[in-house]
């Protein structure tokens, strides 16, 4: 199973991962992290759709995303 991990403190809410994900798995959260950004989060229910294409990882300027296979 693919596990998407978005570091909530590293994320700066740029949305690049959101727009490149072909499966629309990632969205922006409502809460602020300690640096004052709304971090990206995965839609838990959709995580299973992840094809591990790595696009979100490739585009994340903060290297905040990890994709693992469990």
């Amino acid at each position, binding site marked *: 199973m693919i596990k998407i991990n978005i570091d909530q403190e590293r994320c*700066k809410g740029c949305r690049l991962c959101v727009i490149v994900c072909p499966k629309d798995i990632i969205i922006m959260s409502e809460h*602020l992290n*300690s*640096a*004052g*950004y709304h971090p990206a989060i995965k839609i838990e229910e959709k995580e299973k759709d992840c094809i591990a294409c790595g696009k979100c990882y490739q585009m994340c300027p903060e290297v905040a995303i990890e994709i693992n296979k469990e």
Partner: protein
Amino acid sequence: MFEELIIAGYGGQGIMFCGTLLAHLAMEEGLNVTFFPSYGAEMRGGTANCRVVISREEIGSPMVKNPSSLIIFNKPSLIKFSGQLKEKGLLIINSSLVEEEIVKEGIEVIRVPVTQIAQKLGNDKVANMVALGVYIRQKGIVSLESAIKGLESILLLKDKEEKKNLIEINREALKSGFNY
């Protein structure tokens, strides 16, 4: 009068505009004033703060160390600056973003949900004006009318398209703060 104010928060929260407007208002009242901006190591975003000194006399250092007032927009700024506040100082906190209770004794704390108020007005970017409204009322440096006049004259200088809307909403925010 001798007022030393620090306004602090995230970059993007309108900290600098808040401070320069205040400086402008003080000048229009015929007072001496200095404004000094300061940015964190982050390129953008990150933290930002500014120092405003207002006085009848010639002003020495613009680099306030122990302010008589603080306007705080986020938690890191509260941690950083609250200890430096003078005794009997005024602390205005954006309670929308800062939940902490303040430990320090002997200061006047005003908690205002400025972001929420601003959101209600339709744009959370004018939270800064709400806070300024509160501050002006507390300190009485200028009247609300003068403040609004000053605000308008400054915004008119901007070459933004949406000048009118901008003035409108900022004015309302200032009022809401003043009357909070």
